[in-house]
């Protein structure tokens, strides 16, 4: 009998009075996932709620600017008030053209948000498509798309957008500006998506999906992409902030939206000349711009911390 069931030759220490602790698992606990964990982490953070509230206010102002302003930003301009300081009914003073600074900021919110949102959407979309195709199909397609990505990564996107907007100077609009910014800022997203898809591709469920006969493209869309989205959302949120800065920078340089369009960048650009006599024309749009960018970057960084279990453990 002993030949069938040989006793182990090596020495095994006897377990005596040792209290062995196994990682405790609560069976009745609700099943958790990455997003639920992230939400639990986020909802305890006051900065998350403050940033979110600020973004909500921004969206409200962008959607209904007339509800918050008493004066029309274009029609109620009166040169008699040119560069005048704050007064009742006009808490932030007047511009050189005698327009109400507050109502111009409120109406400019829409432009800044729309351009930022569109640019981010375009950039993220191109980045996701390029990055996921490169990583999922690999081979020559990966080499090709990655080299194309390298080229776009090499050109600072504001400088590229300056050239694009000069080329399209007759067709200036929110859409062309968004294409100029988004069309050159996708390379970073593509790299992140590529790395993430390469990671997810190794999972058993992806292999199972292909083994069960789902086409490779459908597997990519249904199983791989949703699991590679977490870092994309983080980058897109931060990117929204930088896209708004890009719009303002381009408008400031004079190659963004036309001067007739109300946007924070244009307001700041036009306030250059009155910085000595009427500093409020420069300072208040700058504050609006900075706070908005701050809100989006803070949200993005909180999301990144919440979605990354390693970062969460490190805190």
């Amino acid at each position, binding site marked *: 009998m002993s030949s069938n069931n040989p006793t182990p030759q090596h020495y095994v220490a006897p377990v005596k009075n040792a209290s062995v602790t196994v990682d405790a698992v609560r069976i009745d606990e609700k099943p958790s996932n990455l997003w639920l964990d992230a939400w639990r982490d986020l909802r305890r953070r006051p900065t998350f709620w403050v940033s979110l509230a600020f973004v909500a206010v921004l969206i409200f102002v962008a959607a209904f600017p007339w509800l918050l302003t008493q004066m029309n930003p274009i029609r109620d301009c009166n040169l008699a008030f040119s560069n005048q300081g704050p007064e009742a009914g006009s808490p932030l003073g007047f511009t050189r053209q005698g327009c109400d600074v507050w109502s111009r900021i409120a109406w400019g919110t829409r432009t800044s948000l729309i351009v930022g949102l569109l640019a981010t959407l375009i950039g993220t979309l191109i980045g996701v498509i390029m990055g996921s195709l490169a990583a999922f199909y690999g081979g020559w397609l990966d080499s090709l798309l990655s080299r194309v990505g*390298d080229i776009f990564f090499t*050109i600072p996107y504001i400088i590229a957008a300056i*050239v694009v907007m000069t080329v399209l100077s007759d067709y200036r609009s929110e859409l062309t500006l968004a294409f100029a910014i988004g069309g050159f800022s996708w390379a970073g997203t593509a790299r992140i998506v590529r790395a993430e898809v390469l990671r997810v591709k190794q999972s058993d469920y992806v292999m199972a999906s292909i083994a069960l006969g789902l086409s490779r493209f459908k597997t990519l869309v249904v199983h791989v992409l949703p699991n590679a989205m977490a870092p994309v959302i983080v980058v897109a949120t931060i990117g929204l902030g930088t896209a708004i800065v890009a719009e303002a920078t381009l408008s400031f340089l004079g*190659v963004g939206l036309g001067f007739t369009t109300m946007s924070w960048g244009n307001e700041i650009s036009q306030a250059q000349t009155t*910085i000595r006599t009427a500093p409020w024309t420069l300072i208040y749009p700058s504050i609006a711009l900075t706070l908005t960018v701050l809100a989006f970057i*803070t949200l993005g960084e909180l999301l990144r911390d919440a979605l990354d279990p390693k970062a969460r453990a490190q805190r």
Partner: protein
Amino acid sequence: MGSYILRRVLQVIPVFFGATLLIYFMVFAMPGDPIAALFGDRVPNPALLEALRAQYHLDEPFVVQYFYYIMGVFQLDFGTSFSGQPVIEVLQRTFPVTLRLAVMAIALSFLLAIVIGLFSAIFKGKLFDQVSLIVSLIFVSVPVFVICFLAQYTFGVQLGWFSPTVGADNGWLGLTLPAITLGVGIYATSMRLTRSSTIETLGQDWVRTAYSKGLSRGRVVPVHVLRNSLIPMVTDTATTFGILMVGATVTEGIFNVPGVGNTLYQAILRHEAPTVVSFVTVFVIAYVFVNLLVDLLYGLLDPRIRYVK
């Protein structure tokens, strides 16, 4: 190491041609006749127009123009700007100013970033850390032209500590204010990077070993922690360089610094296609080679990188 260098250098070639071609194509598509614009309101002699077009190869198809251009680049001939000056001469004149500005901005911001980032990491979660984090977050968010205006208004106009514009006075001292404004963005990103990499290093086993050997914090932090925390800073040089190029264009424009960035912006406004292409090309070539250098240096610092395909 040899095959790693070769692989990295070979990767640069398609990027170089792709980037120059893309830029050249965009500028080629620019509307308006640059030669006619050269004469302003005056009506030039058609024969002269034709001669000028031929001189700048503007009558040739796109690919031929690009070919002429890229052949010139290999001979360090970046073409002639429309004011008649060779671009390489414009670069020679403007580059030292931008270099001074960049060196000053980087030196100031890196020094501050490393010191504050290190202390922030050591006192993680304390008041000092929280304040410096908030400050850096604000610095990341303020667009560079807003910083420029605020600095120009506060220190140049109100307090009168610096001259609001630089102009001819572009020595080290004259560039102080533009350098500080340019450094703000670099400071914010590198301070946060130093902080996070130091926090990671502080958690490593060898740091615990150093402490348990009885070494003091004054020895562990500079010798064992700081040196290892600075490696990620090397890889981030490319990002810094990107911030620097865009920042220089805006900063030099606002403070009227006669540097490369200012010239590029002026050239774009005047539709001086060859000048724009030359400057952006120089930017891109510089960026590609800085990236290459950083990668090679990183391969030297971290052997694991060399063997990854």
